């Protein structure tokens, strides 16, 4: 009985270690992907804003039909 309890106790630590690894690494990848997405959107927003400023309102650019 004692060895069974010790075994279950060990399993708890093993699960904790593997879950910690998965959460930390998965979380880091998610953070990096979010940072990449945010940076791309920021760059695109700056370009779009600049184009609106450069182009007079109501006049289509040359690229537009």
């Amino acid at each position, binding site marked *: 009985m004692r*060895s069974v309890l*010790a*075994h279950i*106790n*060990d*399993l708890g*630590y*093993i699960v*904790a*270690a*593997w879950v*910690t*690894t998965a959460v*930390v*690494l998965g979380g*880091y*990848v998610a953070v*990096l*992907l979010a*940072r*990449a997405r945010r*940076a*791309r959107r*920021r*760059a695109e927003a*700056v*370009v779009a804003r*600049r184009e609106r400023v450069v182009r007079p309102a109501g006049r289509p650019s040359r690229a537009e039909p």
Partner: protein
Amino acid sequence: MATTKPSQAERALGKLTARTGERVLGVLSIAALAATAVMSLVVAPPDRPPPVGQGDLYRIMYVHVPSAWLAYLCFGVVFVASIAYLKTGRSRWDRLAAASAEIGVVFTGLAIVLGSIWGKPAWGTWWTWDPRLTTTAILFLIYVGYLAVRKLSDNPRRRGRWAAVVGIVGFADVPIVHLSVTWWRGLHQGPTVKLPTITLAPIMTATLMISLTAFTILYGYLLTLRLRVGRLEERALAEALSPRLGQPASALVDQDELPADGNGRPVLEEQGTGPRA
């Protein structure tokens, strides 16, 4: 701004960090980590039962040891890239060092936490001032300091130089961490794999090698992803600055140093948002 021809090493790095390479590494990482989980938790047999061995508890080794190995690898890359940056002055080496340092801090932190989870049932304590644990904690703090140094200056060149010096000097702790179990007596066990002697059973050694390989592939993926983040963040900043500087954003992204204003201060300091690699 004059651009110089990239070296062979830089071209190889460019190919490896292309978007396709990143995707391939991502898929390979998932497959290798899945194989590691199956081998570690199902295929590998338990150790001898306590008090002689550790029973199933030793399975934590398959994530703890690769995390520590990756920390060494990451800081080794920081060391080499820092030397290359000081020698050539090219910002891509600085970006590589910054990316690798950040990943190294994540893995060092993970190795410490996993060691703590293993230490509680094995030693009866979450933490002790054992030489291996203490030197690893110092290593963690050194590279957290490295990342902090990168925030100190908005001048990319100055920031790169300071960080490179910390990256080179800080690497001195890596061999100390590795040899601490040989130099001083403590609770932490000696090296499991010390060629040509391996104290593990062949199947356990094979599982450990698979785990080390999987984590190394994962490092490749994280590095390419982190480098892309660095490039995108620089591009976002360059797009924002290009009208003020009267230069196209593409010309600003790969510059080693952005132009200074009339008082000789880097233009980025006015904004307070230097490109964080």
